[in-house]
């Protein structure tokens, strides 16, 4: 087995991983950086983000306003010290990206332009038309090519963290093109592996978002925090789950039910705003959790439109006109045309809520450090937490920049700390050999009649029915039982593909096992949280309960058993929990 010695290993080369790698390379060119990705960096799912990245830049906006929107949007489950740090750093990071060449959309005078976004009191979302994540990712990736100290390992699939003496010491990974195991020895590891939307059947997330990094940390003993908070994006294309950016509503798009009625006014987000006029933080510019929940109620009331892909409501953009749509939203126009055959210039687009983002993730502190020395995490796989119970659109692209860099700085501080951490090579070798043995054993499994697709679909359907937009004890009981059963049954999957080169049956099997672990953490955390807060809505506990649950849930891995759930206090500095008011009446 080949061993690669590094100072820092980064697992995942999307926005957060690339930002961390560049920060490391800039801070100290002598650092040996290994940047691992199970795909090529530019395939990372950051590329699918459309709408924008939030950062206070305009004179009429303020850091306090961004803070208030974020904390209120998160239903007061955000750690406020982390939010404050995030908001302070946001404009610097976005400007840094501008210096690296990101093609931000501009105002007439050449200044960076901003657009309105849901739940934001001010226009503060920087955007590159409707392909912001794509441009952000490619800008970072291309910039990373400048640094020779960033050694990329593309298409390697990380299987295990190496841990001894309570510290992380590296990881091992399958090089997909050879099928050989590689051992990466490093005193510091940063996980930036993204979310796990694929545990649900209907998601905006790409095939690669299977929660691998979350599972790596979780199995190594690091808790997963706030996993019950799963964001549904209100405007996904039916069938494929392709995202239509919140920018659609930011630019003036409205939602209508089968009677052409703008139903959001019935769900605490009214009164109705004039067509074509965007009024911030109300109606269509309410937060994602509220909009998705409103759809659920409309559907129950029979006000949705049946389509061959399931029930939908309409996103109406017609009043914006062709010119504005082409300038601001060319990609979504193309997507809607291609995938549902509707031109938004002339027709309303059928849409429905779709799983989009995991607020929860690997537990880290404000420094992006996990409780395990040497292990850091940033981006969607991590939970800092700045997103609380519901993330505001356009905070996550900024988050991966701010905390990607932060993770790098923390890793450097750790490497240079008083006790210079060193790798116990003997222990690492032993663990890597064991990991390799486990992979080999997968090929010898007996056929129990199970298939990857069968178990995956059963998991996803069970998540949708029990841990969807609305949940209850009864529904979650079923889901947790199903997941526990599926985790056992997965050992009955026999690999038919025995080859080493680019064996995607093998990687799918590994991904499935990660997804099952993460799904179980979601379902059990949701079962234990007996209140409704942000994106976590319980039919049997409909109110927010600050006395008991103004706390982060912490799912602790317990092998074959379901996770244990503990709680951790939320950091509150200046904003006491209040009412989330998205009615337009006050303003």
């Amino acid at each position: 087995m080949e061993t690669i010695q590094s100072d820092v290993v980064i697992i995942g080369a999307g926005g957060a991983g690339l930002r961390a790698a560049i920060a490391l390379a800039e801070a100290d060119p002598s650092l040996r950086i290994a940047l691992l990705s199970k795909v090529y960096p530019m395939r990372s799912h950051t590329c699918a983000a459309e709408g924008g990245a939030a950062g206070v830049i305009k004179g009429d906006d303020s850091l306090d306003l961004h803070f208030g929107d974020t904390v209120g949007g998160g239903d007061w489950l955000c750690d406020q010290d982390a939010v404050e740090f995030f908001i302070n750093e946001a404009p610097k990071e976005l400007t840094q990206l501008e210096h690296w060449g990101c093609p931000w959309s501009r105002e007439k005078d050449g200044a960076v332009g901003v657009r309105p976004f849901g739940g934001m009191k001010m226009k503060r979302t920087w955007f590159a038309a409707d392909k912001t994540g794509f441009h952000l990712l490619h800008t970072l990736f291309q910039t990373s090519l400048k640094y020779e100290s960033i050694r990329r390992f593309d298409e390697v699939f990380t299987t295990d963290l190496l841990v001894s003496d309570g510290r992380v010491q590296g990881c091992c990974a399958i090089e997909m093109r050879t099928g050989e195991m590689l051992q990466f020895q490093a005193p510091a590891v940063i996980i930036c592996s993204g979310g796990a939307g694929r545990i649900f059947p209907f998601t905006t997330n790409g095939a690669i978002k299977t929660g691998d990094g979350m599972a790596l940390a979780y199995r190594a003993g690091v808790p997963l925090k706030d996993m019950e908070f799963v964001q549904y994006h209100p405007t996904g294309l039916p069938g494929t789950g392709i995202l239509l950016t919140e920018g659609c509503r930011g630019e003036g798009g409205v939602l209508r039910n089968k009677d052409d009625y703008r139903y959001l006014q019935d769900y605490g987000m009214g009164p109705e705003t004039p067509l074509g006029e965007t009024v911030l933080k109300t109606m269509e510019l309410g937060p994602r959790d509220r909009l998705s929940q409103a759809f659920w109620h409309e559907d129950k009331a029979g006000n949705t439109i049946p389509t061959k892909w399931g029930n939908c409501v309409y996103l109406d953009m017609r009043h914006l006109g062709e010119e504005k749509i082409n300038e601001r939203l060319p990609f979504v126009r193309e997507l809607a045309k291609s995938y549902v055959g509707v031109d938004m210039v002339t027709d309303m687009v059928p849409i429905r809520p779709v799983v989009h983002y995991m607020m929860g993730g690997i537990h880290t502190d404000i420094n992006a450090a996990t409780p395990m020395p040497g292990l850091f995490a940033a981006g969607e796989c991590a939970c800092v937490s700045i997103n609380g119970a519901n993330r505001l659109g356009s905070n996550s692209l900024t988050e991966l920049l701010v905390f990607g860099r932060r993770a790098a700085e923390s890793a450097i501080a750790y490497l240079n700390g008083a006790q210079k951490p060193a790798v116990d090579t003997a222990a690492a070798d032993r663990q890597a050999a064991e990991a390799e043995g486990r992979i080999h054993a997968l090929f010898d499994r007996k056929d129990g009649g199970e298939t990857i697709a069968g178990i995956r679909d059963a998991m996803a359907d069970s998540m949708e029915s029990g841990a969807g937009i609305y949940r209850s004890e009864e529904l979650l009981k079923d889901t947790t039982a199903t997941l526990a059963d599926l985790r056992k049954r997965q050992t009955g999957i026999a690999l038919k593909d025995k080859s080493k080169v680019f064996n995607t049956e093998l990687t799918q099997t590994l991904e499935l096992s990660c997804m099952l672990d993460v799904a179980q953490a979601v379902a059990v955390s949701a079962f234990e949280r007996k209140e409704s807060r942000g994106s976590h809505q319980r039919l049997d506990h409909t109110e927010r309960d600050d006395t008991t649950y103004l706390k982060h849930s912490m799912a602790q891995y317990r092998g074959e058993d379901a996770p244990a759930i503990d709680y951790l206090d939320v950091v509150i500095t200046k904003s006491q929990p209040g009412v989330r008011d998205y009615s337009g009446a006050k303003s």
Partner: protein
Amino acid sequence: MSRKPYVREVPKATWYMRNGRYLRYMAREVTCIFLALYMAGLTIGLVRLMQGPDKWETYLAGVSSTPAVIFHLIAFGFACYHAKSWFDVTPKAMRIPQGNDFVPGRIIVGTHYGIWGGVSLVALVLMGVL
């Protein structure tokens, strides 16, 4: 090492037979042979003109023969094809700013045709045809 990437060789002599797109490209390139032959014929004509009226008359008789007329018709057809295929791609090479956008491709192509037509007209007038 279990890797053994397989390289599919491209046939060096017949690569352009692989699809219509390449064939159209080859047609564009091949038509220039006829243009070159036409130019060669024209150059011979100029030399004959310098050599005196007799030589010139012989030359004129030569180009009036049926095979020469056929050749010129073919060359003219190819010249048109060559011009069109190049005019069609000119907007790619020429991007002319106009406000916050670029001059539309059809205007660039149209201008080329316009200039072509104009020059041809002048030539025909000078030759006394019009």
